[in-house]
């Protein structure tokens, strides 16, 4: 199977005090550390496992700046054969614009499957995969936790709510958005990344794709970022660990739980 996998670099935001920048429409990025989007990590692993089973190639694609090449190198180290970065310059992009760019890139390739993550950890749109499918006029499935290639198609497991799964069969080529837990992503060492530096990483300026300006107009624009409105929030228990533990046990007993 020939598989294209779309990946994105995202900031880590746990244990970080985010600040909104002067524009009021973005966060200050200089203090942040970045990683491969969690969902995309599973998507790349899935692509590579499918390739190991069925043959073919895996191409990783990102739309981003030179800094974002770091996640492509990681994909190459995991086993992707080739990587492509589309450089969008500093134009505003929403999910629609990204899907149009990705569609143009994918159209130029031979593919049986395109994999994306279910959502990106920063903006939480959860839309690029299915938008891309529609641009390619390909069938799709969102929130996929299992892929079983069968002749001409694939059995697909989709995760619903409450521990329920839905099994279906999809025609290929198809676009699938991958959910966490579908596999166990392999470990990537610094050595591995160094070794993969020899693999092909093409940079494509957006202009080379020849997409007309109209198609690159976002359907949404951010008007403002703000901090979560004040809520009552939690009453913070103070003191050393022993005193906190005492307070916790007291609360638990008060709530009618016997321990």
């Amino acid at each position: 199977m020939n598989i294209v996998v779309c990946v994105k670099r995202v900031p880590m935001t746990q244990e970080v005090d985010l600040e909104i920048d002067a524009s009021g429409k973005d966060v200050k990025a200089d203090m942040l550390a970045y990683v491969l989007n969690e969902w995309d990590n599973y998507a790349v692993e899935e692509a590579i496992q499918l390739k190991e089973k069925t043959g073919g190639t895996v191409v990783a694609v990102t739309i981003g700046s030179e800094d974002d090449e770091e996640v492509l190198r990681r994909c190459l180290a995991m086993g992707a054969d080739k990587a492509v970065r589309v450089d969008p310059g500093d134009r505003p992009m929403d999910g629609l614009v990204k899907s149009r760019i990705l569609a143009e890139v994918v159209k130029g390739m031979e593919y049986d499957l395109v994999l994306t993550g279910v959502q990106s950890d920063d903006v939480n749109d959860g839309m690029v995969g299915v938008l891309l499918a529609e641009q390619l006029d390909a069938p799709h499935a969102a929130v996929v936790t299992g892929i079983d290639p069968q002749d001409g198609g694939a059995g697909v497991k989709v995760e619903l709510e409450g521990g329920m799964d839905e099994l279906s069969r999809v025609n290929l080529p198809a676009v699938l958005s991958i959910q966490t837990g579908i596999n166990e992503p392999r470990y990537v060492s610094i050595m591995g990344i160094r070794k993969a530096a020899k693999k092909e990483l093409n940079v494509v300026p957006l202009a080379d794709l020849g997409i007309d300006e109209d198609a690159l107009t976002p359907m949404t624009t951010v008007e403002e970022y703000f901090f979560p409105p004040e809520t009552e929030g939690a009453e913070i228990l103070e003191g050393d660990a022993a005193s906190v533990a005492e307070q916790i046990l007291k609360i638990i007993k008060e709530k009618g739980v016997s321990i």
Partner: protein
Amino acid sequence: MGEIFVLVEHRQGVLRDISCEMLWKANELCTGLSHTLTAVLLGGKDEPFVNEIAERADKVLVVEDDRLEAFNADLYKGILSSLIQEHKPFITLMPQSPWGMDLAPSLSVKTGFPLATDCVDILVEDGKPKAVRQIYNGKIFSKVALRDADCYLMTVRASAFPPDAVEGRAGEVVKLDVPADLPEPRREFVKFEDAGAGAVDITQADLLVSVGRGVGEADNIEPLKELAEKMGGLLSCSRPVVDKHWLPKYHQVGTSGKSVKPKVYLAFGISGAFQHVAGITGAGTVIAVNKDKKAPIFRVANYGIVDDMFNVVEALKEQLS
């Protein structure tokens, strides 16, 4: 007078909560705008919950066909896009659920109408809808405008709005024919499978000791298991703990796991993503331990401890022995 559409979600003959939540919000929007509220039900023959919907809408458009009993993006997209072209609803609300995420973006491309996903609120300013969204794991909110259009599409986050019915609506149920030119679906439903059952049932526990990714590694689960046993509670967890195979799926709390209703829920190293928090709305008291004082879990917890979880776990174990 304009119209607002709500695409109701249902499964195996049951209306899903998110449908009522969307109808609640649509009712509020319709009241403010003097629009009418139209629920759209695509389903199998004689779905049993039509009245539940009618009580919450001015009109229910029903398209019934065996092929629509289970969700199918190709068919839903085909029918909805022609209904939207015909009625030109100001806003169409859909759920940000696995099915909604499968449908809404393709409907947006098909109709050319702009889409904002995962809205936790919807405002109307100068006659234009604005989406309020949560980003960066709930640490930042954003207000988003949509490109000018005749119709707008929005998906709504679960539990963002109450599921309550509003007095005074008794919607007319209008059955429509299945369009003759329905496309051949490119994806076929096979069956549902229950992946959630297992050795323990966390939904019945009075006390849950719940672990999140903050636990760090598989070996660190053991002290929490011991704590849960010492307290006479059950061990539960967030999704990453299951994804990493540190605990089996039946321990998972949240939208894709179990909804729980313990008297006390102790959350250790859980950030408080909405998919997790949606599973603990029924909990009596939530006590959260997290190193990050800005973790969103502290917004929903009753009590918070800003500390390394293992300090607190050890101290609790000491007090109990």
